[in-house]
């Protein structure tokens, strides 16, 4: 199967760089897949799961906090402010973040920024799902 270059970059580091056959990304209007020789594309991504198959057939998944997928002739790049592979996720921290966000949403005191709390909750859920514990 034809392969192409995928880079996953965050402000802190390049999380992944390699030849892949296929990737799946959480577009804001729903998940979509990209194969080699895809038409040039710039897509906004939501909080969610990115899955891809490496050239040797290994399947990998990671959680991202929203960003972009940029597909052009010379390969694809996923930009996210945070991206973590399932086995790198700190499960305890994700659980704590989820509980904290849930608590803020339950209380709804006037100083709670609901939108931010919901986003935090979404991120925590996603990280727990990708890490495979819940």
């Amino acid at each position, binding site marked *: 199967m034809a392969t192409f270059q995928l880079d996953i*970059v965050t*402000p*802190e580091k*390049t999380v992944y760089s390699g030849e892949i056959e296929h990737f799946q990304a959480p*577009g804001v*209007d729903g998940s979509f897949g990209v194969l080699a020789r895809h038409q040039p*594309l*710039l*897509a*906004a991504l939501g909080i969610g799961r990115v899955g891809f198959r490496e050239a040797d057939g290994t399947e990998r998944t990671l959680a991202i906090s929203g960003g972009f997928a940029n597909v052009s002739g010379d390969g694809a790049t996923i930009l996210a402010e945070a991206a973590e592979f399932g086995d790198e996720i700190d499960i305890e921290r994700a659980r704590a973040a989820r509980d904290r966000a849930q608590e803020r949403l339950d209380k709804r005191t006037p100083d709670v920024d609901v939108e931010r709390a919901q986003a935090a909750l979404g991120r925590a859920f996603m990280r727990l799902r990708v890490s495979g514990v819940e």
Partner: protein
Amino acid sequence: MATLRQLRTRVASITNIQSVTNAMQLVAAARMRRAQEAIAAARPYAQQLDRVLQRLSSMESLSHPLMIERAVDRTALIVLTSDRGLCGSFNTNSCRHAFNDMSPDDGILAVGRKGRSFFRNRNCEILNDYEDVFRDLSFASAITIAEDAVNRFLSGDVDRVMLIYNTFVSVAQQQPVSEQLLPIAPREGEAAGVYLFEPSPEVLLETLVPRHVNFQVWRALLESNAGEQAARMRAMDNATKNAGDVIEELTREMNKERQSSITLELMDIIGGAEAVAQ
């Protein structure tokens, strides 16, 4: 003239100082290397973000609240300094740079303790301050600072946000610069060609703009951090060398002192011996 004992104590204490400054220099050197690596690690993201921005800038009809210029009555200045001193003129440089461009109505967002006390001493309005950002530098801090700035800009509290920090030119040189963070300066776009925008250019811009602002702050934090460590490394290197010079000087004085006391004693003995012989 100091006594031999006094001189010896001073040499001992300066030797202590020297070992401390030498250790600080080594620590700063290690931190600087790490900071430089962090700058390099951010580069791929920077390039990609820039490409996305260019693609979208080529769409003419696009506009975003953070891109709209308005008459400037009041500016917020984000000034990056260190939390700790002993880094030469590093903090003074960025603070002075900001202070000289400031008008009385402007407010300060101070990142680092040194900047906060600089502007507090001059009775400038401090809108907010951040401490300990550099000790464990993470992108989350950049987001917090950027969101603070964006909120102030959108609420109309300020009409412009500037970012003032020291860039890491080289180990020997850090250059204070001021950059406009908000509103985002318009960019020349490259022809997009046949490109699919998913779901729409508007949504993409909506996603891009806050991330662009976050990243500008992040880049400045990284530069400033590397610059701080470089400045400290050099300051401590100088201090270690100076301590060496002082020790040399004092040792010479000590030897002279010892020699003259021996000479005196000898004269005494000779004098005494002659008196006995007579």
